[in-house]
C-alpha cells in the first residue's frame, strides 16, 4: 500500500490542490477500476462507476480524516457505488451467457472468456479480476479486500477452477 506516500498528497488535495489529486488518480484508478470490473463484470459499467468513484473521492476528500488510508477509503466508495449501481440496474447478480448472446452473434475467444468471467460468482470474480488486472499479487489483493492472504489465494484458486469448468462446459455444449 502507498499509505505513507498518499498522506502528504491527500493533505495537499484537502487544500484544493487539483494537481495533487491527479497523482492519486494515476496511483489508484487502476485498483478502483479493477474492483468495479470485478463487482460489475462489465467494462463500460466499470468505467462509469470507477470514474464516478474517483470524482466522488475528489469532492469528498476534505472529509477524509485518516489521510494515510486513501486507498481503502476510495475502494470503499467504489464498492458502495457498484452496489448502488447494481441495485439501480435491478439486474441479476450473474448474467448468463444466453442473456447476453444474441442468436448468430460471432463468438470470439475473448468474448467467450468474458462471458465465463461474468458467470463467476461475485466473491470469486472480484479477486480473480483484481489478480489479473492488478499485478498478480495475492497479498495486495488481500489488503485491498480486507481478507487474509490465504483467503485471497483460496478465492483465486476457486475462481480458476470454476472458470475452467465454465469454459469446458461451453466447449462440450458446442
Amino acid at each position, binding site marked *: 500500500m502507498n499509505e505513507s506516500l498518499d498522506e502528504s498528497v491527500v493533505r495537499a488535495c484537502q487544500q484544493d490542490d487539483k*494537481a495533487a489529486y*491527479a497523482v492519486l488518480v494515476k496511483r489508484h*484508478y487502476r485498483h478502483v477500476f479493477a474492483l468495479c*470490473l470485478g463487482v460489475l463484470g462489465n467494462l463500460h459499467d466499470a468505467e462509469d462507476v*470507477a470514474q464516478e468513484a474517483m470524482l466522488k473521492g475528489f469532492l469528498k476528500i476534505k472529509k477524509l480524516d485518516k489521510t494515510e488510508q486513501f486507498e481503502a477509503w476510495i475502494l470503499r466508495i467504489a464498492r458502495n457505488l457498484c452496489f448502488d449501481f447494481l441495485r439501480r440496474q435491478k439486474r441479476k447478480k450473474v448474467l448468463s451467457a444466453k442473456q447476453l448472446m444474441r442468436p448468430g452473434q460471432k463468438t470470439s475467444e475473448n468474448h467467450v*472468456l468474458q462471458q465465463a468471467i461474468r458467470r463467476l460468482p461475485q466473491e470469486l470474480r472480484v479477486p480473480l479480476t483484481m*489478480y489479473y488486472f492488478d499485478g*498478480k499479487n495475492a497479498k495486495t489483493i488481500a489488503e485491498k479486500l480486507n481478507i487474509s492472504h490465504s483467503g485471497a489465494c483460496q478465492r483465486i484458486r476457486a475462481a480458476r477452477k470454476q472458470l475452467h469448468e465454465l469454459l469446458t462446459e461451453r466447449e462440450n455444449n458446442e
Partner: protein
Amino acid sequence: MNSICEKIKDQIADLVTGILSEAQMQKLEQHLNECAACRDYARALKDEDMLLTEFFAKIDTNITHQQERVLQAINHSGVSKQSETHLIWRTIMKSPITKLAAAAVIIIAVVLSINVWDKSIPTAYALEQTIEANHSVRYIHIKGFDPSHKEPKEYWVECDESGKLKSARWHMPSWDAPEDGAKVVVWKENKIQLWFKGTTKKRGCLVTYKKEKGADWLYNRAQEYNPKLAVERLYEQQAQGKVKIQVDQPADKAKPIVVTATYLPESPKSGEREVLFVDRGTRLVTATKFYRLKDGKYKYQCTYEYYDYNQPIKPEMFDLDKEVPADVRRIDEDQQKIELNKGISPDELEKYENMTPKEMTIVFFQACADEDWNELLKFMSDSEIRQETKDYYGGLEIISIGEPFNTDEYHGWFVPYEVRLKSGSIKKWRLAVSNRNLVQRYICDGGF
C-alpha cells in the same frame, strides 16, 4: 482421475497462481509425470492463464485514457474550477501590482499620518512627492524573497503614460507551487499567457487564456490597486480607523524613512503588519517587509524589493510566443472552444445552447440510436468517439429519459435514462451533464 487427483486440482490451480512451496511443487510434478488427466488439466489451466493475462492486458491499454477522462471530469467539476480560479487569484495576489498598490496605499497613509504623528517632517512636501513619484512610475522590477527559499519571485510591470497598466510579467519559482513547477505569466493586451515549465513528472505547456475569462478579470483586479484609486481608499480607511501608521525618520540621512503599517481589528487584514522603506531622495518605496501576528508577536513572512524604477523593460519580456521553445505544447482556450463547438453551424448554435439537460440527453441518445457519431460528438469533449463506444451504444433503443436531478456533490445534472442496447441488455443509469465549460452549453460530463 481419482480422489487424489481432485486434491491435486487445487495444487494445479495454485501452481498457475505461483503460490506453491518448493516441496509441494516437487510432489505435484511427480504426480503430473504419472497422471495424464492431471497433465491435461494443468495444461488447460496454463492456457487459460495466458488467455486471462492477455485479456486483462488488453483492457489495461485503455486505462490511461480512462484516467484522462477522470481528470477531465474533475476539471469540469465545480471544485476544480474554484481551484483553477484560486490558482490565478493566488498568482495575482502575489503580483507586483498588488504589492505596489499596497505600498502606495501605505506610503500615502504614512504621508497623511505624518500630520498627526511627526510634526517635524515637512508633511505636505512628503505627501506630494510620494504621490507624484508613484504616478510617474512606468516601469518597475520587483523581487520577492521568502526566508525558506533562495530563489526569489520576480515581477516586471509596465504602465502607459496615464499610469494605466500596460503589461506585466511574473516569474514563479517551482517552490511556489511544486505541483506546477516553475512558471512564467505574461499579461499583455488583454490576454494572459501562462507558461508551465514542467516538472520531472509533468510536461510543460503554454496556456493562453481567452480575453473575457482571465485577462479582463485580471485587469480589473489590477485597476483596483491603481494608486489613484488607492488614495481614495486610504482616506476611507483612515476615516474608518482600520490601519495604524508609524513613521520613523532616522537622524542619519543615509538611512531610509521607515513606515510601519499595522492593520487594526476592524480591518480584513487584521493581524498583519507591513514595514516600508522609503528612499529619502525619490520618496519611492525601495522595499516592503511583511509580518503576521502569531502568539502575541509579529513574525516575519517575506520581503519585496523594488528595483529599476522607470528603467524601460524590453518588449520581448512581454511576449512568450517567441520565448517558449517550439516543442512546448500550446493550449489556446479560444481554440478549445471552437473544438467543442465542432460541426455546429452558427445558425444551429442557438439551438444547442438553448437545450435543457433533458433535451440534450434525448438528442444525445438519439444520436447513439441513429449511430450519428458527428451529432454525438457535439456533446462530448473528446476529439473522436471510440470504436468500443460505437460498438456498445450504437443502434440502441431509448426506453425512457427521466427528469433531471442534482445533488450536493455534483454541480451539473444527472439525467436518468433507460436504453436497450444492441446486445439486447437493458442499461438503466444516469447521464451526467453540465454547462460549466468553455462553450457554456450542456454536454456530457465524462463517462455515460
